């Protein structure tokens, strides 16, 4: 596919169905987005010791994120330099060496080749060529514990890529008196449609009252069995919440204006809540503590970091495109460092009830993804993202700030997508 077809896939804030359905587009996305930009791969809390590793991926590439014996965190292709087999089959753990099961080649946990079996079988001239370690991913960097990698040796720095989303990451991270970690395990699910609809949906302030009507009715129930109408006002068309496109494809749904002081009040009523609040104030000061508690509560602040990381409710969400029509998603509940254990345990229970493969909220989103997937089949269908174009305010940084139910976040995603897809090569 040449340049022109990509240019027409997103025009006048409408998306052609083939952007979600075409295998050629998916292949090009792997080259032009996932081979170039910064991709979230793991959290430092998952790599506590020398030799700690996690299996991850950058686009379709399987990678190992490893803390070497020297303490340095590296991203290595999980691909034997001999015949290409994955050298590690585990989700995570500790290892001093990785041994390929196919012909027994071994690699140190910094990626260097440790040994070739029967090395005499190689000519002297060949041995230097074949004796390669696990290929390192050219660039690895982290932001307050969040590890990103780029398959491109050159390009914007991680901080340049994160741009205007960093203050929002800070808010989510500061929801722990001592920051947050990702040490509570993970849930997984898949759905048979394109990855980009999950990116759009985590910052969609328009859908909740409709898609999640059943969950909100149950969660908003009063003791007498009636349903509070208040719960449906949080995300309606008059809500003071904001939907913000931050540039570079990043976006947030900011419901702090709607929640106001209630998020702190709710937190105080949870197990360990008063102690959590006390430690938050001690760590961050009262104003910042209130802001971060609100952002880190259930609905306070959804964040999307282009192209594959999100914060939703209590969780970190990682989006993994597998094929054009299959997406894997990881949900990692955050553990608030420095908060009382019972407060964190209670957050795990809230997460399980609402999200994941058996949550009250999550599965209804997947149903809509599948319905869009079915509806877009055939010729000429378009997805419309023009809601709120007239009312969204764009500042001098290019940040577009709109009412909660506007589609400013989705437009921000597609602008970055289009820019990446129209750039044929980077030097």
């Amino acid at each position, binding site marked *: 596919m040449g340049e022109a077809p990509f240019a027409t896939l997103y025009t006048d804030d409408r998306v052609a169905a083939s952007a979600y359905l075409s295998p050629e587009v998916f292949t090009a996305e792997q080259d032009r987005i996932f081979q170039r930009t910064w991709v979230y791969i793991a959290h430092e809390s998952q790599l506590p010791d020398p030799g700690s590793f996690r299996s991850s991926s950058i686009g379709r590439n399987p990678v190992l994120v490893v803390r070497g014996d020297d303490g340095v965190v590296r991203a290595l292709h999980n691909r034997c330099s001999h015949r290409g087999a994955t050298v590690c089959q585990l*989700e995570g753990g500790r290892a001093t060496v990785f041994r390929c099961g196919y012909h027994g080649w071994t690699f140190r946990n910094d990626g260097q080749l440790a040994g070739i079996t029967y090395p005499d079988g190689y000519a002297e001239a060949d041995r230097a060529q074949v004796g390669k370690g696990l290929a390192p991913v050219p660039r690895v960097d982290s932001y307050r514990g969040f590890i990103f990698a780029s398959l491109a040796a050159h390009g914007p720095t991680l901080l340049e890529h994160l741009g205007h989303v960093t203050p929002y990451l800070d808010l989510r991270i500061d929801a722990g008196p001592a920051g947050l970690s990702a040490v*509570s395990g993970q849930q*997984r699910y*898949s759905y048979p449609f394109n990855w980009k609809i999950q990116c759009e949906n985590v910052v969609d302030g328009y859908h909740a009252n409709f898609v999640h009507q059943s969950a909100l009715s149950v969660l908003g129930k009063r003791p007498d069995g009636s349903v509070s109408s208040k719960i449906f006002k949080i995300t309606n068309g008059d809500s003071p919440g904001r939907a913000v496109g931050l540039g570079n494809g990043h976006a947030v749904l900011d419901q702090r204006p709607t929640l106001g002081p209630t998020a702190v009040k709710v937190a105080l009523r949870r197990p360990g809540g008063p102690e959590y609040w006390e430690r938050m104030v001690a760590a961050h000061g009262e104003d910042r503590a209130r802001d971060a508690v609100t952002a880190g509560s259930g609905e306070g602040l959804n964040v999307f970091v282009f192209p594959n990381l999100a914060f939703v409710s209590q969780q970190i969400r990682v989006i993994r495109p597998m094929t054009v029509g299959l997406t894997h998603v990881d949900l990692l509940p955050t553990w608030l460092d420095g908060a009382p254990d019972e407060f964190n345990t209670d957050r*795990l229970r809230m997460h*399980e009830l609402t999200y994941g493969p058996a949550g009250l909220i999550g*599965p*209804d989103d997947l149903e809509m993804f599948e319905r869009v997937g079915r509806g877009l089949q055939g010729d000429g269908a378009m997805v419309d993202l023009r809601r709120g174009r007239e009312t969204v305010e764009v500042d001098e940084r290019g940040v577009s700030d709109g009412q909660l139910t506007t589609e400013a976040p989705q437009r921000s995603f597609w602008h970055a997508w289009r820019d990446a897809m129209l750039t044929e090569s980077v030097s």
Partner: protein
Amino acid sequence: MTELTRVAAEDFLYEEAALIDERRFDEWLALFADDGLYWVPGDDPDLDPTRQVSIIYDDATRRRSRVERLQHRSNWRDDPEGRLLHLVSNVRISGIGADGAVEVRSNQLVTHSRSGRDVTVAVACTHRLRRTEGRWLIVLKKVCLMAAEHYLPPGAIVLL
């Protein structure tokens, strides 16, 4: 103390499976003791649920919420309604606690059919049953997914 024979344990599990498959969810809820726990662990069946995330960890309140959502008219995941089928097998009495609660293990296949797709998951179940006022109540239903670390498709876990 009333003893639970293996045949009676089988009858109990068959009846429980039928209540789910026939969507008689309120009757299913009534099988649990008030302090009963419905637990589907995540990756590791022996995980510490106070520090590690599970897939389901329901006390009575959360079980009730789960069922209310399944019964809600705008449960889109079930519109059109899916069909559940449990196959219950390999039932054995695996222990009797000091409190008289009986532990029953079983292997089950649970199929959810909807939208032209069957999703089947294999699970190993542990039930702890306590005799209360002339009937057996579930103190613990622990359901371990064989595919716990898989990226399961939608519909894989409705009620196991």
